[in-house]
């Protein structure tokens, strides 16, 4: 398992949330999650402009054998999705914390970030 990026926040459902920039965060699934899932063959992305509450399923990541919901750890509006995953879903396996990102959300309740795990806590959580 690769290093867990220090600056991100993490959920118990194995999503990562980047630090906010102008009120927008990037969300993806962690390297641990992609490793548990195996080869990702399809990613169901949310629609840009839709709004979600923290804990909502915003899409799904599917491997050959398993479909797994992706939950947003924060509330807000989807401002961008990673369209590249439509052509190259395996990017989630190759670079879960980078080019395998799922979507960007404009935070409606920035305080929610404080309730998430930091890198050290998440690393312990995965043990």
């Amino acid at each position, binding site marked *: 398992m690769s290093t867990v990026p220090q600056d991100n926040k993490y959920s*118990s*459902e*194995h999503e990562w949330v980047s630090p906010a920039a102008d009120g927008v965060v990037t969300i993806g699934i962690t390297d*641990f*999650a992609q490793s*548990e*899932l*195996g*080869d990702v*063959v*399809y990613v*169901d992305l949310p629609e840009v402009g839709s709004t979600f509450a923290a804990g909502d399923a915003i899409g*799904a990541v*599917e*491997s*050959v*054998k*398993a*479909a*797994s*919901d992706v939950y947003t750890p924060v509330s807000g509006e989807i401002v961008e999705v990673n369209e590249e995953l*439509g052509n190259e879903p395996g990017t989630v396996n190759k670079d879960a914390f980078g080019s395998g990102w799922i979507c960007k959300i404009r935070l409606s309740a920035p305080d929610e970030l404080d309730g998430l795990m930091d890198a050290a806590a998440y690393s312990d*959580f*995965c043990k």
Partner: protein
Amino acid sequence: MSSLKLKKNKVGDSRSLTRGRKTGRIGAVNEEEIKSTPLCEKHKELGAKMTPFAGWLMPVQYTGILEEHHSVRNACGVFDISHMGQFHVHGEGATEWLNGMFTNNLHKLTDGVGQYSMMLNERGGVIDDLIVYRLAAEDYFIVVNASMIDEDFAWLGAHKPAGVVLENLSADYVGLAVQGPKCEEVFAGMCPGKSLPERNGIRKIEVDGDELILCRTGYTGENGFEMFCPAAQGVKWFEKVMASGAKPCGLGARDSLRLEMCYSLNGSDLSPEKTPLEAGLSWCCDLSKDFIGVETLRNQKENGRPTALVAIEYTGKGAPPRHGYAVQLPDGTPLGELCSGVLSPTLGKGIAMAYVPIQHGKVGTEVQVMVRGKAVPAQIVKKPFLKK
């Protein structure tokens, strides 16, 4: 034929896997109730992800399902099939008795040859699909699905006449399915100077003091063989097969490989409520002889089948088809549910099988697969998906 009961074991079921990921362990169950094959520790050593399947803890993948799938299509892979069952039936009257228990005709077999067959209930529904090999006159070796060993043995035992011996040898063997275009090179590497039986054949050979039972069959659509060796020597033979060039492959690849060929999986595509004619397996049912369940089959042949197991291929983009997803006509008329489904690694599109009402089962029929509320366009196509 095999025993991939992916649904029962919560693999391929999106809800349970969601739960699995939330708890951080996909497919985690109480391992105390689960049996493991003699190769279990070796699988773990090789880095396999283990999953409960048909009551057994089995490798679902080692390095990745896609890579394992392609290695069987292009080179050679090896699967642990030790969970599958082996029965030995022999004695005066064995042929006549088994011919009344199974759908295919044993009189077509000569010594050293096997056939795919089905065992039905009184209503003509499928109890199990199996391969029966004739070792010699009145002497048969039968390979059955892992999940059905006890039920099959009880059913056979309840119908067995005196004088015929029925033995369950399932615990005696480690089974390895060696599959792929390079399987003959792998065999030559591990058993120099020996030869494989012809297609559907069975042969016992002795190598390194071990008796190996070689069966020229498989569940992948590739050239291949299945071998059964003494359980205590299983790890040694598994290592020999790998050292000779076969890549270890898990149940995930086994399922995608068999589905590309439209090979039925008991528990998913076959059920006690469906006949082999509905499953499209009339080719292994000889209706001119008597066997348990034949009346229903003759009736269906005469008056028609209510449903047919059809092959469904995506014509548009969409999330992979999976067991349990609804299938409907474009106007919304429900047709049924998918029995099996996968994103075909070879074809790069969704493939699935479902029982649909016979009047809607024609090749070319446009249908929709419902995935999380979205309709994915698909079509009923000719079997198998992968034309070889």
